[in-house]
């Protein structure tokens, strides 16, 4: 049986790991390569780096991080943040990323999704969607790290990018991100019930039952979390044992 994936995410700024609360107030918490190696050994199913480096001049620091991680961790590595075009994707893949996640650039230019999927394969292209509930049971796509509202409906958008060749959707609830109050399972369900590619749930995990809810209520194929792993609240092993005890198929 296909397993539900647990994906620790590391937000990386200038080559250092940070984790924000509601995208602001960043706290430094270490070396990303070191963290990635620990997660790999603990049984993470994949790894995710999100580059939040503001200046494009400093983006090369991330490439070094990706390279070193790929040399040490033999599990899939997704890298996103500031990916604008095919060259950015090509560079990240060359340095050892297995998948590249595209956010704002896909909203600005939807053709990029098809171009990227055609060139590198759907399996390589993750579309990251930052969603915020703007009316009851209605979610809009936000861009630029969640700072800019668009008029695009999240479910419609997810369907469109899936049709254009996105292999996977990384769906972040901006309402929940950093709050530790659980995933937005209504948002997740709205997308997973309509879209035929795997959806990674993101934003809001505070405890183990939140992860279970993301699968049972939200219908997620994979769960992404940062701070609960990062500050040692739970290990990957603990999460997997808890899910297994609740009859969720996981790789142990």
């Amino acid at each position, binding site marked *: 049986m*296909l397993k539900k994936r647990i994906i620790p995410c590391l937000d990386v700024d200038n080559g250092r790991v940070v984790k924000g609360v509601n995208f602001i107030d960043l706290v430094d918490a270490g070396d990303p390569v070191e963290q990635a190696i620990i997660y790999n050994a603990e049984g993470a199913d994949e790894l995710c780096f999100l580059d939040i480096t503001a200046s494009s001049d400093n983006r090369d620091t991330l490439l070094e991080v990706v390279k070193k991680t790929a040399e040490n961790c033999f599990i899939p590595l997704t890298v996103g943040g500031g990916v604008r075009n095919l060259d950015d994707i090509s560079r990240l893949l060359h340095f050892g990323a297995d998948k590249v996640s595209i956010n704002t650039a896909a909203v600005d230019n939807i053709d990029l999704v098809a171009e990227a999927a055609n060139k590198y394969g759907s399996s390589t292209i993750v579309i990251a969607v930052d969603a915020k509930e703007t009316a009851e049971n209605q979610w809009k796509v936000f861009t630029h790290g969640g700072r800019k509202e668009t008029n695009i409906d999240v479910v419609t958008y997810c369907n469109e990018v899936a049709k254009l060749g996105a292999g996977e959707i990384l769906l972040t609830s901006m309402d929940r991100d950093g709050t530790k109050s659980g995933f937005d399972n209504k948002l997740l369900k709205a997308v997973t019930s309509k879209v*035929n590619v*795997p959806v990674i749930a993101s934003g809001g995990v505070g405890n183990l039952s939140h992860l279970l809810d993301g699968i049972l209520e939200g219908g997620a194929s994979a769960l992404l979390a940062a701070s609960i792993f990062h500050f040692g609240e739970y290990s990957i092993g603990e999460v997997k044992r808890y899910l297994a005890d609740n009859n969720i198929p996981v790789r142990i």
Partner: protein
Amino acid sequence: MNLAIINFGSGNLHSVHKAFESVSSDLSNPYNIIVTNDPKEIQSADKIVLPGVGAFGDCKNAILNIEGLQASLEVSVIKNKVPFMGICVGMQLLADLSYEFGAHSGFGWIPGEVRRITSPKEYKIPHMGWNEITFSDHKLFDNCEQGSDFYFVHSFYFQNQKNEHSIATTKYPDQITAAVCKENICGTQFHPEKSHINGKKIIHNFLEWKP
């Protein structure tokens, strides 16, 4: 001993290279691992690995566009029986035909066709993530446990014409070929280079394989 990883521009080249290098470095006689599309280097290799991600037709065209590449593979693999491993689309290319975005011919080294996975709605496509495999007795699975998990990511699968060529299967929800072998030619649908310890075992076994 030289091991050639075929470079036709596939995205997962780096991962495959690093994983083979890591496993090989633990052998008493490590391989000299080269990433190449040079027909001469390929013909002098003792083992050949063909990685591949993306669409079948694109991969096939990329190979055809490199002068002498396919011919050198034919000489090494078919004539000289050099041990060969295809990974993901690199494995699907062994088939006669694929129906991904139109009909495209493959190498025709292992009879069968590549078809889209048909699954009920609750089974998302691509089949992406860790899934367990059941394998038959083969060197490639030495020291592996039945039911171990490997990392898959694909929307099409290799439907073998002869059951004997399918040496491992997984379920999603129907049975899908997870690995193939015919004489000196093997291939995996899953990504050994991304399958952590289990994947390293497969790579190790391929490096030690003497078909």
